[in-house]
Structure formats: structure tokens, C-alpha cells
């Protein structure tokens, strides 16, 4: 130590220290200068961009989904409304660990794989800070569980949304269709802007056809949120425009009558107001509860519906294509009269079968197996329609030829979509030589004309087409496009007129009288519904073969498996003098028209006599 002290030079040390202090001060001032420069750069030079950034942080543009338009029947009965439900959504940007959060949420409330699947798909399409729905229709208990655990679930949002509800789900399942969650494919077609904040879209039926009307216009609001995505206050609001309400021509009473009359049977009923083209009933059974689809149907429920032999998801009224059978006979008769090939007095001999010249094959009349003979030795048009004589129409068809038949029947709307305002409509088949050449690349055989003449063979129609054709018959030629929707908002929806079916008044009357006697005549094929009927009805029965009957075989109902039984059909309009309703009824595998005409009677009773009359 003494040595060290001896060598220490306090003056030099002090000088060095002063120099070092000076250096330190310089470094400190420069470093703080650098810091200040950095803050200057952030706060002054780039102020605008950071201010914008902080506003974007704070203020979130939220879509306000419009309220979907309601749907009413013609009496003002609510058929589709919106109910508040609670939805669990996730804002990805606010979630630190998505997988952990999803796992935790799964522990708190049931979340199906399907929910997760949909969620992940939507997650990829979302905009930044958009809430992506995970679970719909939370129960109050689930909401409570989530609320209690909210602190550990940043970015998880529970909010209320209006969701479609169908008070009469099954009754109107095929008439209304339903909405469901927007899927990937739909997302490509829908206007992204219009569907911000909307998770549902019309999938089928009126819900889909009138999507634009029902949807409305999206609104927006600027909200202030905190870092956890919680909305603190609304800064600005542009209200959404709710979708327009629809009032239908459908009548809940007719609908219910038809639905209940069909009961357990598979079938379809379409009723049209001939004066307006308004569809007053559209029933296809079995129905299904459309509410199941609104939130994504469970796969168990879906497979059950999809795999059911009764194909409940199939809208028989517009998708189902069936041979019309004898229901084409009034139209055929009119064609015969108009073409001049027959008159009301023309008769055809009826041994119960028909044979083409130079052909040994016998074309049977349905009555042959019952009576062993024909309807009468000579049959005229009136009798042919009233008793549904096949031989008469085999002969008429042969005289007309298939292409003339096409020309006369096509204006009734057969073989063409009716353009009714719903989805998935099929066009059926009204055959012609040209059609067969185009569709099957085969020539037309004369025997096929005979089958076509009694509505068999290649002829296929939908119940909707038959109802339209019946309406054309009822109005003596006015052909209106059928319409389910009567008005949207306050604006009436017109049923556009199609080219009319032009025919002589006397010819119309001949056909009408025959159709009246189908119900009211002593030998009418539907006379059983004509008993104690308080009004006059015109109709025509029909039986459509499901399987072809080989030559020499006789169709025996009891031996045929249920699903191979004939379809029963019936078309009718009433009151006879001034029709206000035209009905087509189809009962799949009903065995014959006797399964169908009581249903038509009940529907028309309800319409003409009131709901309590049936």
C-alpha cells in the first residue's frame, strides 16, 4: 500500500476523471438526443400514420345485419319470423392462442365437429377483427357459463342475433323452403358487402327465390372497442334496411287440409286460384321441420332425412315427375275437337282393348280386368272422359299423331317449367318425335303414341304443371304463370300471362261438362266424392303406372309391392260455373285415383265452405 500511495498522482487522476466525465456527458447528451430524435420521428414525422393506426385500433367498423323480411300467408298468418338467439363468436385477432381457446370453449359449452368445421372455413374468409361465429343458439345456461369465464377468454364474444324461425315448420316445409348457414360455395356468389354480419341465406324454396327481397341492406356502425374486443360505445351508426316482408297466396287452412288429408301417404297437392295464378296450397309429403336446417342440421338428423326411403327433402310438388295418366284426357279431348278429327258425337267401338292396324299387340283398357269387356259398345268423348275410357283416347292419339298432340298439349304448360317462384322446379316430359330423337336418339314408334294418349309412356308432369293445366282448363284458356308470392312489401307481384290456349267455346263446354260428370255423373269415375256435395265441381281422375306391364300380364294391385303400386292422381276445379280454385293431387303408390280425389274434395271444401266444413 505505501508504494501505491507514493505513485498516486491526485492531480492527474482528477484531470483524467474530468475528461472522462466530459466524455460521459457527451455520450449521455448524444444518446438522449438519439432518443428524442426517435420520439420526434414517431410523434411528429409519422404522427398521421400512427394516429390513423390508433384510430383503427380503437374504432371498429361493425356490420349491422338487416332483419330478414317476414313471410305471411294470405290471411296474414306469420309463416317465417326472426327470433333473437345468442351466438358465440371469436375474434381471431384478439385471441392469443386459438387452439387453447377452442379447447377451453369446448369444455364450457358443447361444440360439435360440424361447428368447428364451419368455424375454421369461415375463419379463412374473415376480415381482420371480424367476429367469426362458432356456436349458434346458446341456451341461457351456456350464456351464463361463458359470462362467468369471460375473463379467461379474450376475443370470445357472445351476442344476440336474429335467427329465422318457422312456426309451422313441417306444414310449409316445401312451400317456403328454408335458410341455412352460408357455405363456401354460396360465399363466392353472394355480394360480400351485403352479407357482412349475415350468416344465413335462403337455401331452397321461396326463401331462396326471394333472397334479394327478404335479405334487405346491411348497415354499419363504428364502435369503440378495447383491446379485448369489447364494445365500449357506438360512435356512428348507419341503420340497416330491413328486408321486405312477403305475403303469399298460400292459405294456411288449405295447406293444413291438404297436409292432413295426405296424412302418412307420400304425395303432393297444388291448388291455384285460376283468376290470379296464385298458388294457394303447395304441399309435398312427407315434410320435415325446416327449423332443423337454420343452424346447420346435425349429421344424424340429416342422414335420417337424406336416407329415408320416403325422401322427405324431395319437393314432389315441383320436383316430382309422374306420368299424368288419364288426367291428360280433357286436354286430349279438346285437342281432338279443335283439330276437327272428332266431334262430340264421334264414337269409337270399345271391346276393352285396342289394336293398331297391322299390329297384333292389344292395348288394354283399364276396365278390361274388372269387367272383362269395354265401357260400352260405342264410346263418345263425353263418356270417354267421364268413365276414363282408354280405347277412345288410343284411337284419338293415333289419329292426332304424337307431334300434333305435342302442339295441342304444350300450351297448357306441359313439358315446360311453369316458372313458379320457387326453386328446383323440373320440366317434365311432353314427348314428340323430335324430343325422342334428341333425348334418346331413337325413332318414334306408333305404339308409343297410344301410351302418350292416355298420359303414360314417356309423358311426365309435375303436380305443379297439372295444377296450372287445370287452371287453364278452368279459365277456358287463360294461362298464368303460377305465383306463390302475392306481394312484397306493399307492391303486388303480378302473375305474368302466358300465350292462352285458344279454342271454340262449344269445345270448352263439351270438355267442362264431361269433367263435371266425372264427379257428378252416375258413372263418373270420381262419383263417390260427388255425393251430397253442396257445389258443382269438375275433375278428372288419373292412374299412373309405376312399372310397365308386360304383354299378356294383368296388373294385380294386391300382388305388387307397395312401392310398385300405381300413383293416384286427380285434377279438379270448382265451382263449376265460375271456378275460384284449381287443384292437382298426386298420391304416390296410392293404388289409383281413389286415393287422390277425396283429398281434392277436402281441399276444395275448405276453400269454398270454410275451414270448419271438412
Amino acid at each position: 500500500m505505501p508504494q501505491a500511495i507514493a505513485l498516486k498522482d491526485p492531480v492527474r487522476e482528477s484531470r483524467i476523471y474530468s475528461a472522462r466525465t466530459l466524455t460521459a456527458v457527451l455520450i449521455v447528451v448524444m444518446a438522449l438526443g438519439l432518443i428524442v430524435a426517435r420520439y420526434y420521428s414517431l410523434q411528429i414525422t409519422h404522427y398521421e400514420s400512427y394516429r390513423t393506426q390508433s384510430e383503427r385500433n380503437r374504432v371498429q367498423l361493425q356490420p349491422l345485419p338487416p332483419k330478414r323480411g317476414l313471410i305471411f300467408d294470405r290471411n296474414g298468418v306469420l309463416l317465417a319470423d326472426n327470433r333473437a338467439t345468442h351466438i358465440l363468436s371469436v375474434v381471431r385477432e384478439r385471441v392469443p392462442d386459438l387452439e387453447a381457446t377452442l379447447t377451453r370453449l369446448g369444455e364450457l359449452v358443447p361444440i360439435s365437429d360440424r361447428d368447428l368445421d364451419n368455424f375454421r372455413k369461415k375463419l379463412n374468409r374473415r376480415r381482420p377483427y371480424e367476429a367469426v361465429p362458432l356456436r349458434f343458439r346458446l341456451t341461457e345456461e351456456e350464456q351464463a357459463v361463458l359470462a362467468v369465464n369471460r375473463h379467461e377468454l379474450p376475443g370470445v364474444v357472445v351476442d344476440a342475433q336474429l335467427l329465422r324461425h318457422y312456426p309451422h315448420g313441417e306444414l310449409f316445409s316445401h312451400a317456403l323452403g328454408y335458410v341455412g348457414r352460408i357455405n363456401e360455395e354460396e360465399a363466392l356468389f353472394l355480394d360480400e358487402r351485403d352479407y357482412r354480419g349475415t350468416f344465413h341465406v335462403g337455401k331452397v324454396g321461396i326463401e331462396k327465390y326471394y333472397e334479394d327481397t327478404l335479405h334487405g341492406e346491411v348497415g354499419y356502425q363504428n364502435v369503440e372497442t378495447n383491446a379485448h374486443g369489447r364494445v365500449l360505445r357506438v360512435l356512428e351508426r348507419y341503420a340497416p334496411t330491413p328486408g321486405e316482408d312477403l305475403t303469399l297466396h298460400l292459405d294456411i287452412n288449405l295447406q293444413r287440409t291438404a297436409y292432413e288429408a295426405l296424412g302418412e301417404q307420400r304425395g303432393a297437392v297444388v291448388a291455384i286460384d285460376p283468376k290470379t295464378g296464385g298458388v294457394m296450397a303447395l304441399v309435398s309429403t312427407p315434410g320435415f321441420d325446416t327449423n332443423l336446417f337454420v343452424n346447420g342440421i346435425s349429421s344424424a338428423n340429416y342422414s335420417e332425412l337424406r336416407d329415408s326411403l320416403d325422401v322427405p327433402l324431395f319437393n314432389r310438388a315441383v320436383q316430382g315427375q309422374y306420368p299424368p295418366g288419364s288426367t291428360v284426357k280433357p286436354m286430349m279431348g279438346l285437342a281432338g275437337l279443335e283439330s276437327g278429327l272428332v266431334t262430340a258425337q264421334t264414337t269409337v267401338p270399345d271391346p276393352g282393348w285396342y289394336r293398331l292396324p297391322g299390329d297384333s299387340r292389344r292395348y288394354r283398357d283399364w276396365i278390361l280386368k274388372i269387367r272383362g269387356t269395354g265401357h260400352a259398345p260405342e264410346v263418345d268423348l263425353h263418356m270417354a272422359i267421364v268413365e276414363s275410357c282408354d280405347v277412345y283416347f288410343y284411337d284419338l292419339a293415333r289419329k292426332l299423331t304424337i307431334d300434333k298432340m305435342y302442339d295441342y298439349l304444350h300450351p297448357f304448360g306441359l313439358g315446360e317449367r311453369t316458372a313458379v317462384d320457387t326453386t328446383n322446379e323440373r320440366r317434365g316430359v311432353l314427348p314428340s318425335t323430335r324430343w325422342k330423337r334428341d333425348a334418346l336418339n331413337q325413332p318414334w314408334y306408333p305404339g308409343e303414341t297410344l301410351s302418350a294418349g292416355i298420359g303414360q309412356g314417356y309423358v311426365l308432369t309435375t303436380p305443379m304443371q297439372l295444377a296450372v293445366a287445370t287452371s287453364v282448363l278452368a279459365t277456358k284458356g287463360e294461362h298464368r304463370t303460377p305465383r306463390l308470392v302475392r306481394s312484397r312489401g306493399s307492391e303486388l307481384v303480378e302473375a305474368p300471362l302466358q300465350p292462352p290456349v285458344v279454342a271454340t267455346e262449344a269445345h270448352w263446354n263439351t270438355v267442362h261438362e264431361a269433367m263435371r260428370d266425372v264427379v257428378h255423373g252416375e258413372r263418373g269415375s270420381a262419383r263417390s266424392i260427388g255425393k251430397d256435395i253442396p257445389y258443382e265441381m269438375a275433375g278428372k281422375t288419373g292412374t299412373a303406372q309405376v312399372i310397365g306391364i308386360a304383354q299378356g300380364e294383368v296388373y294385380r294391385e294386391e300382388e305388387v309391392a307397395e312401392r310398385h303400386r300405381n300413383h293416384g292422381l286427380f285434377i279438379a276445379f270448382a265451382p263449376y260455373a265460375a271456378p275460384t280454385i284449381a287443384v292437382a293431387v298426386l298420391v304416390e303408390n296410392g293404388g289409383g285415383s281413389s286415393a287422390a280425389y277425396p283429398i281434392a274434395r277436402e281441399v276444395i271444401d275448405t276453400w269454398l265452405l270454410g275451414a270448419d266444413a271438412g
Partner: protein
Amino acid sequence: MADYLRQLPQGSADLARRPSAASRFHIDVPLLVLLLALTSFGLLVLYSASGQSSAAVIRQGQYFLVAYVVMIVAAQIRLVTYMRWAPWFYLGGIGLLVAVIFVGVGAKGAQRWLSLGGFRFQPSEILKILVPMTVAWYLADRVLPPRFKYIVVSLAIVGLPAVLILRQPDLGTALLIAASGLFVIFMAGIGWRYIFGAAVLAVASAWPAWLFVLKDYQKQRILTLLNPESDKLGAGWNIIQSKTAIGSGGWSGKGWQSGTQSQLDFLPESRTDFIIAVLAEEFGLRGVLTLVALYLLILLRGFWIGLNAKTSYGRMLAGSLTLTFFVYIFVNMGMVAGLLPVVGVPLPLVSAGGTSVVTLMAGFGLLMAISTEQRIADY
């Protein structure tokens, strides 16, 4: 003379030529005034940063109270006493650091705490003062600038605790402690060739350090600093949000308690390490400049005390404490503004927290002890 004054009874203060309460209690008035201004400003910002929590302000106020008491007590002790006890305390401190390894308490994956009967403390904090005290003690009696072997020993004194703390792991504290010791060596007048040599060595060892020394989360912080946008929701979130908070404050700020970034919870750690962002957002660049000015005055006062210290020990210690205080400021303000990687260094005397405040104020107590010795020596 100094001893004589210390023994004066209170009533006979007028015996001194410039008797005042401050000098009787060894208080450096300019420093005290600056510190009071700084801590008041800090409480003001904290009130807003904590979401108008009086409880948070009261608790921080209590910390300050304790810290001021510690400072005043520290100022009463003679510098010679510090010097005499420095090596023993240092050894004790090292012992505590070793104890942390074996019986320490962990938090967030790091083991930094000792628990004594319910009272938890961080031994590394004490080292922030003990390291410069010990290095200064070691060099005080040597010929300055120190010769190579003394530098090596000094570096060992610095390195031992720094490595122990680095392994806890606590990069921020290790850096501060290493800096505090190195500053003593720097103020002792170490040759520039050593300094430049060390700088070259540091740059050269950056790559091996990256590969073998730094932990993944530390590397992540550096990567995030370089490109915060790469991980917007993870590590980058903090930096993006703090830069947004600062930048959106502009020149005059959004107003006290009106910062949207801080009040709406976008800003992370807004009471502690990132509190400068709250200040910058609500008080704007004006507020930042005020704070920097306060800090600069404190630093200059510290250097001034060092310049006027009569012993090498006092000089070196004053310079080191002042520079360490500066490192706090620089690292914290730099990291929050995205200039430096995020290391856990609080904004001195503004960030909420007890330990660092007490240590810092103890350091200022030491400065006052150095200052009072110099003044007494003047008489």
C-alpha cells in the same frame, strides 16, 4: 472537520458558516428537488396508466416514501464506511445469488427471488449498488488509470454476479449490473485501447453469443425488434402497440387519462415497463421532452457531484451511479420506442414497482453521501 460537524448538536447548527437543515441531514437540495419533481410526474402518469386507480398510486407513493427514507438514511452514512464494508457486502451478495440457484423462488420461467418468512426480494437488485461500490473500492487505492492486471480483477468482480444473474435468467438486470461495474472502470480512466479492443471483441463474439448464450425468448426479442410486423399478434404486438401509442400522441398528446391506446388496454405493461408510452400518448412530445429534461438535469447533477468529489472512491462511484441511471433511461425509452430489444428494464422512478425504486434511491443516497463529504471537505 467533518467529524466535528457530524457531532454538533442540533441547536448549535449556527456554529457552521452556512448552516441549513439540508446540510445537517446531508441532503443535496437540487437533486432532491429534481427527484421530487420526477416522482410526482411519475405518480401523475401512473394514475392514468393504471386506469385511474388510486390504490395503485397510493401503493407506489408508499414505495416512494420508503425509498426516500432509504435515500436519506443512506446519505447519513460516511463514504469511508461504505468503502470499508463494500467487499464484505459484495461477498454476502454473491452468497445470496448462489442461494437463489438452490432455494430461489421462480416466476415466469425465471428464478430470481429469495423468500424470507413471506417477504420476497431479489438479491440481484442489491448487487446493482454493491458491484460499483466494490469495483470502486478495489481501484480507489491503485494508481489510475489502472494497470492491466487490476482491470482483469475488476472485470472478475463485475463478471461473477453478472453471469450468475444472466443464468437466472435476467438479461436486463445482468446488463445493468455489468454496466454499473464497467462504468467504474471507465471513470477510473482505463485506456481507450482497452475500450476499443473490448468493443471489437464484443462485435466478434456476437455470433457465438447468439448461438450458445442467448435463450430463445431473448433471440425472439431481438428478431421482433428488427421486424415487429413478422409476429403481429405475438411478440410484435407489444412493440407495434407502444409505437402506435407514442406516435399517436403527437406534439401535445391526447390529454391526461385520454390516451386510447393505454386506456383501452391496447398497450401492454402500461404501468410498468411501457409507461413511457402512456406518457408519450397522453402528454405528447412536450411531455417526453419535459421528462428527458428532468432526467438530464439529474444526470448532470450526478456528474457535478462526481467532479467535486474529493476522493477517487467518491468520484468513481458517483460517475458509475449516474451512468447506470442513464442506462436505465436509455434502454427503457429505447426499447419502448422500438430502438432496442425488449429487456425488462423499468423507466427509472416512473414505472410502477418497489424494488427498483428503492435501489435507485439508495443509489441517490450514496450520491448525496459523496456530495456531502465533498461539501464538508470544503469547510
